[in-house]
């Protein structure tokens, strides 16, 4: 399913700021995030560890514990309604109902003391009010849908009796059990073997196409983004620094950080092109640098960068960048990424589907 350009947003983050109170001062984990997900599209949220991706994802579900977290500003609009204003009860209805989430490590995110089936049935009974028997039947159906073999027997399996791939399928079944409109997937394949990763991504894509739900896919893997997403948002130091349709981003990146991420990918198939890691480390988010937060690591910086904080501005159709020099300087991409990555992953997915 392709993105419906111009459709009313399913979810809109509007200047969202979530900080954490610590002894050393407030950590500005999410510090003014603007992001939009339209119905039926897969949006990738990319960035290094510590850039605030996971906190952004969790804050949509209001899963960030407060305290120590605190909402400093901005809104989370779901169909135009601010989730931050919802009562706890109403938020619980939404969680696992219209908005669902899957997590990184399906081993630790499943409760070891209950069977896989029970944990999914719990969600179904919670949101659909089915009785035990009906919920069991629904879970077995879901297990078949997400490709769990011997679904009926697997209902009674405990997480430790399942492989990593099956556990993640259980998590996906749980998330999809109430046909959510928005699925948040927080690094759903990072903890899995490479072959299993491709299978799970293929499954997610297939399910998204079948249900038409919107997906926010959090990842640090640009290859995954290239294969899966319609649009991408690149996050750095608590903010979105660039946002574009996936083809545009890979062909024509307009932020030095995005370019840096692309140049940092090791490319076995391109002889003679060495990966170029971005120099330095992400900033201490208790005291982020003044001006553009990326400027201390940016090879294109000028005086203005350390003084003036660039806002996210339009640099093309549906393409926004938060760089003073977007479209004003030529950022050097060492490789043209898009084609190779996409075909590589696509092959893996086709193979695993057989």
């Amino acid at each position, binding site marked *: 399913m392709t993105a419906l350009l111009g459709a009313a947003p399913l979810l809109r983050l509007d200047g969202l700021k979530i900080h954490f109170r610590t002894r050393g001062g407030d950590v500005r984990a999410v510090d003014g995030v603007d992001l939009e997900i339209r119905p039926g599209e897969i949006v990738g949220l990319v960035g290094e560890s510590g850039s605030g991706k996971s906190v952004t994802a969790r804050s949509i579900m209001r899963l960030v514990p407060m305290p120590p977290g605190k909402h400093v500003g901005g809104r989370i609009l779901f169909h135009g309604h601010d989730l931050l204003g919802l009562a706890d009860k109403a938020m619980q209805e939404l969680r696992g109902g219209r908005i669902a989430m899957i997590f990184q490590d399906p081993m630790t995110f499943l409760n070891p003391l209950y069977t896989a089936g029970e944990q999914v049935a719990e969600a179904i009974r919670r949101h659909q009010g089915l009785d035990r028997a009906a919920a069991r039947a629904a879970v077995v159906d879901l297990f078949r849908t997400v490709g769990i073999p011997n679904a009926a027997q697997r209902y009674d399996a405990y997480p430790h009796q399942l*492989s990593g791939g099956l556990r993640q399928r259980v998590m996906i079944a749980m998330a999809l059990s109430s046909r959510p409109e928005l699925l948040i997937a927080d690094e759903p394949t990072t903890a899995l073997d490479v072959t299993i990763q491709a299978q799970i991504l293929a499954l997610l894509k297939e399910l998204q196409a079948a249900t038409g739900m919107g997906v926010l896919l959090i990842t640090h893997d640009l290859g995954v983004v290239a294969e899966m997403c319609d649009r991408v948002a690149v996050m750095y130091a608590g903010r979105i620094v660039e946002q574009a349709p996936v083809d545009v981003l890979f062909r024509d990146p307009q932020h030095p950080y995005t370019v840096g991420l692309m140049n940092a990918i090791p490319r076995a198939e391109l002889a003679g092109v060495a990966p170029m890691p971005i120099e330095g480390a992400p900033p201490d988010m208790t005291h982020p640098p003044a001006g553009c937060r990326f400027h201390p690591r940016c090879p294109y910086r000028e005086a203005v960068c350390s003084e003036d904080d660039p806002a996210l501005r339009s640099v093309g159709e549906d393409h926004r960048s938060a760089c003073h020099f977007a479209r004003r300087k030529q950022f050097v991409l060492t490789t043209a990424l898009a084609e190779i990555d996409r075909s590589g992953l696509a092959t893996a997915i086709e193979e695993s589907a057989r």
Partner: protein
Amino acid sequence: MARLIATRLLTMVPMMVLVASVVFFLIRLTPGDPARIMVGGQRTSAETLANIRAAYNLDKPIPVQYGLWVGDLVRGDLGISFRQRTDVRTLILERLPLTAKLAAYSFAISLLIAIPLGILAAVKRNEWVDFVASLFALLGASSPVFFTAILLILVFSYRLDWLPALGAGEGGVDELVHLLLPSLTLGVSLAAVTTRITRSAMVEALTQDFIETARAKGLSARSVVLKHAFRNALVPVITVAGLQFGFLLVGAVLVEHTFGLGGLGSLLIEAVQVRDYPVVQGATVFIAAVFILINLAVDVLYGIIDPRVRLGGRAGA
């Protein structure tokens, strides 16, 4: 699970033999001649003492005495008390109901205080409930039971005149009323430890990743805490609770004294004082058996709580 129980029951045999042997030799190593104590320290002829010793096999070499005692023990015969001239088994069974009731009652009180308080303290970490729970645990753990007992007697019997301070009552409801203060005394001191254990196990359980999954499913805070976190916190809690229950059988002796109750603990202490070998041996072996059975019950509970124990599985596959 059946295998586990069978194995554990089998290993009970050598453990019981070990306990029986250790207590047999230890009591004979302690100074004091049972025959002399039996005659009450009066001047007695050597002949009388010799007769007494002969009557109780105390004149035989220790290995022979040991053989006789183990032989009787295997047949379930715990011997005759030197002092009371009664069957030791009868003595134990006489004292057991009171001790069992006191233990069960104190145990129930301790869990009823500790588990809700521990859970609440963990959920409301660093809030006032948590501080109250810490304070309670500190006071409960650091004030000796006889002090707590006297305090409770002063308040509830002497000042308010609500509850009886002495004796075990006349059975039924009266007995329950009489046991309330002693049970409260024991319950509070046990609850101090269990509260801390429950709190730390719950804090640990609540930081687990699957708690986030449970919340993401839309479960209420109550389900998340009680269904998903608490069951994961149970293992350390029942480990400690099991040990405490065993401890209650003898550890209640101070409380028994204070409240004028004659339980198993008192029986054992009195027997040690007068070197009543058969009673010391019999009571110790009995208590050891109960201890081992409680531990077995705790192990079975582990299996019921955690499928990884029951099914012997490990992560992966």
